[in-house]
């Protein structure tokens, strides 16, 4: 099924056009990597802040609110550039189990970011209200660091498996 879809997609005019321009993939990958740079730096700054090992002086609530537009803009750019790369080489992505793990990790990260943002928006001191909340904050922070690294790792290994 997926194999047939990949075959069909790779023969469409748009895919053939992208494939025949040998500058297209490196260019889109460059945009993709710069969007990852913005996203991952933002996620790591928030992650370290949640863990409590950051020298950042800005309150978590302000940090989360300020980061929101950058996070969702970067994720949108990543989605569009990712789709363009997939249209160009469907089998390289869609038939690859590392790609599927990457997509799963992206969904988990996006969901976790959304939860942290909504909780913090409704209740500015949500993550510091009790020892249990502070433990939860540390766990979420560690999760951000690990999942972020996992996404980049999976992204690079798509090319090798």
């Amino acid at each position: 099924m997926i194999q047939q879809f990949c075959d069909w997609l790779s023969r469409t005019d748009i895919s053939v056009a992208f494939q025949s321009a040998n500058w297209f993939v490196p260019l889109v990958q460059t945009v993709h990597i710069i969007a990852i740079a913005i996203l991952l730096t933002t996620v790591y700054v928030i992650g370290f802040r949640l863990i409590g090992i950051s020298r950042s002086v800005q309150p978590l609530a302000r940090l989360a609110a300020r980061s929101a537009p950058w996070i969702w803009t970067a994720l949108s750019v990543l989605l569009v550039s990712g789709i363009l790369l997939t249209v160009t080489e469907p089998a390289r992505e869609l038939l690859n189990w590392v790609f599927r793990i990457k997509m799963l990790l992206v969904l988990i990260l996006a969901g976790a970011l959304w939860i942290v943002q909504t909780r913090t928006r409704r209740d500015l001191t949500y993550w510091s209200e009790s020892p249990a909340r502070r433990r939860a904050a540390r766990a979420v922070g560690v999760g951000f660091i690990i999942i972020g690294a996992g996404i980049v790792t999976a992204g690079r290994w798509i090319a090798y498996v």
Partner: protein
Amino acid sequence: MSMAVEQALTWLQDLKFPTAIRESDWLFPTIETVHVLALVLVVGSIMTVDLRLLGIAQRERPFSEIAAEMLPWTWTAFLVAAAAGLMLFSSKALVYYANVPFRLKMCCLLLAGINMAMFHWLGTRHIEAWDRAQPPRRAKLAGGTSLLLWTAIVATGRWIGFTT
């Protein structure tokens, strides 16, 4: 390529570890993953500062506060990216040395370093005057130059992978 350079690069890539990277199936992609992970943090932290210099992001925060927040990320990640990059280079030193995108990347890296040093020595004078406001034109110029150079570093870095 001069004889001396060729000998030095041959000596480097024939060392034990570079040879192991070249002959292994997983060492190169693993080191490359560390390189990319560190690189995105370098680029992300530098661009955060650049965007503030250009007056695009975080205008209401003092520049010095953002710079102090980002600097440890930039330097830690840069050391990791440079160490991993040197390992990748050493595995195929002769190939990379002759590769045009690699040379362009190193030039951009050098220019980015010079730009950063010049801004640090000249651009941050009288910073109290604009720390909480729009930066002066020379600071904006440094931010814009940095943004362009780091974009070029990512682009040429990606280009290396398509030409080696």
